[in-house]
């Protein structure tokens, strides 16, 4: 028995790669759906905050990511946009990352028609602006100065939904979907703490532990962490078989496989250690 574990401990890493690939591919091919249960989590906090806003609230949705993190953040963007549209909030899209503007446009325009929403009345994409935190500080005094036109070069003064909006004071919520810096932290520091604007967010799983600290201090109203956060929001919004919900099945199977590897690896390590082999 000990020999088996020793042999497992020295397993060729390529076999592990194949097993992980199978753990991901098989659930996708078999359309396996593992129910996603949403508890009292930060994703529910964000959902409830958006739900409680009065209809017609102005919400900044900042698409601070690029295609490399699309599998995690694009389902999040689509679920959040759907929820904002269903609650009749007005979405002001923008991006701190250059390619985020195009991804945000995809998310908003793909849902706009089916939910009876109109560009410039219910949503607008102001596009990308460089500067990160410095730019956010300037939004606190004049949004028009930073974005004289939207992404398609339509002047601010010709966009009906933006009339009456001057600075961050006229915004009821900022949601940043962030893959790194600049992103949620810049919004928390420059908009949340400086101008007292509620900040919500969605992030890649890698950066989630770092952002949990802002939840405990109530510097953020809610957080969607990685694919699980996206699946939670899809579930709460009522999207059946959403991209993130479908992604959670291979995710769960692969996690079980990795946990088994960790257990086997540890048993092999301690077995070898007892024999005096491992250092």
């Amino acid at each position, binding site marked *: 028995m000990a020999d088996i574990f020793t042999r497992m401990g020295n397993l060729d890493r390529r076999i592990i790669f194949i097993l992980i690939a199978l753990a*991901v591919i098989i659930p*996708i*091919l078999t359309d396996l759906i593992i129910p996603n249960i949403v508890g009292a989590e930060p994703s529910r906090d964000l959902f409830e905050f958006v739900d409680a806003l009065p209809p017609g609230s102005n919400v900044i949705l900042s698409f601070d990511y690029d295609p490399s993190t699309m599998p995690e953040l694009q389902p999040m963007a689509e679920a959040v946009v759907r929820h904002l549209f269903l609650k009749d909030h007005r979405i002001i899209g923008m991006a701190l990352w*250059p390619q985020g503007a195009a991804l945000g446009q995809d998310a908003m325009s793909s849902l706009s028609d089916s939910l009876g929403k109109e560009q410039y009345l219910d949503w607008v994409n102001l596009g990308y602006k460089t500067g990160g935190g410095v730019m956010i500080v300037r939004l606190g005094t004049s949004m028009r100065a930073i974005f004289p036109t939207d992404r398609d070069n339509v002047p601010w003064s010709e966009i009906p939904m933006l009339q009456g909006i001057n600075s961050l004071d006229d915004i009821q919520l900022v949601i940043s979907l962030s893959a790194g810096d600049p992103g949620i932290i810049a919004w928390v520091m420059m908009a949340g703490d400086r101008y007292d604007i509620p900040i919500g967010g969605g992030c*890649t799983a890698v950066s989630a532990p770092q952002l949990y600290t802002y939840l405990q*201090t109530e510097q953020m109203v809610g957080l969607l*962490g990685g694919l699980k956060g996206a699946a939670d929001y899809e579930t709460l919004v009522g999207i059946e078989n959403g991209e993130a919900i479908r992604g959670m099945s291979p*995710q769960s199977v692969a*996690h079980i496989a990795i946990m088994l590897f960790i257990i086997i690896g540890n048993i092999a390590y301690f077995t070898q250690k007892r024999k005096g082999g491992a250092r």
Partner: protein
Amino acid sequence: MNWEIVGIWLGALVTLCLYSFLYRDNPYYKFAEHLFVGMSAGYWVIYSIFNVLIPNWWDNMLPEGGGFNWIWVIPGLFALFMLARMVPRIAGLSRLALGMIVGTGAGLNMLTFFQSNALAQVKGTIFSVATGGVWSIFSSLVLVVGVVSGLVYFFFSKAHTGFTGKTANVGITILMVAFGASFGYTIMARLSLLIGRCTFLLEDWLPTIPRLLGIGG
């Protein structure tokens, strides 16, 4: 020619080339890697010119309505100073531009960063115990004990023996739990990317093969 299918095939081939590294280093992987680096560099240069430089600087210096705003010559000069690093004789000029960037960043962040990431966190830790129900109080106690013992672990002015040593041990245990949580989240992130690629290969690329071979719909 159906350009969508061409795009899907290019994406799939490059993905497979990159994953071939998992077997071992090979020329296909190298090709895909260099292609990615080269294309990224080219893309960013063009993107920066048309989406950053022209709208934020050039259009302000030479507005559509005519005229010349000379004040915008200054940021242009600072941008050129940055490139001076490549010429050893005038490399010192780049320090002016760098100094401005560092100074602005430090000035803007000094107070805000301290407020958001130090004061607010300390306040959150101190006041957390006083609020909420039993579970919340327990969770807050874990937080406070975790923070204090974690700090003790990094306090090297006193030998880690006796009570200090035991507290430091609690601290390292808490740190290990935090690293474990972080590791778990990292695995979730990397798997999400793998799932994204596998979904693309299985649901977008594979169905194009029968179409190209003229089999099925």
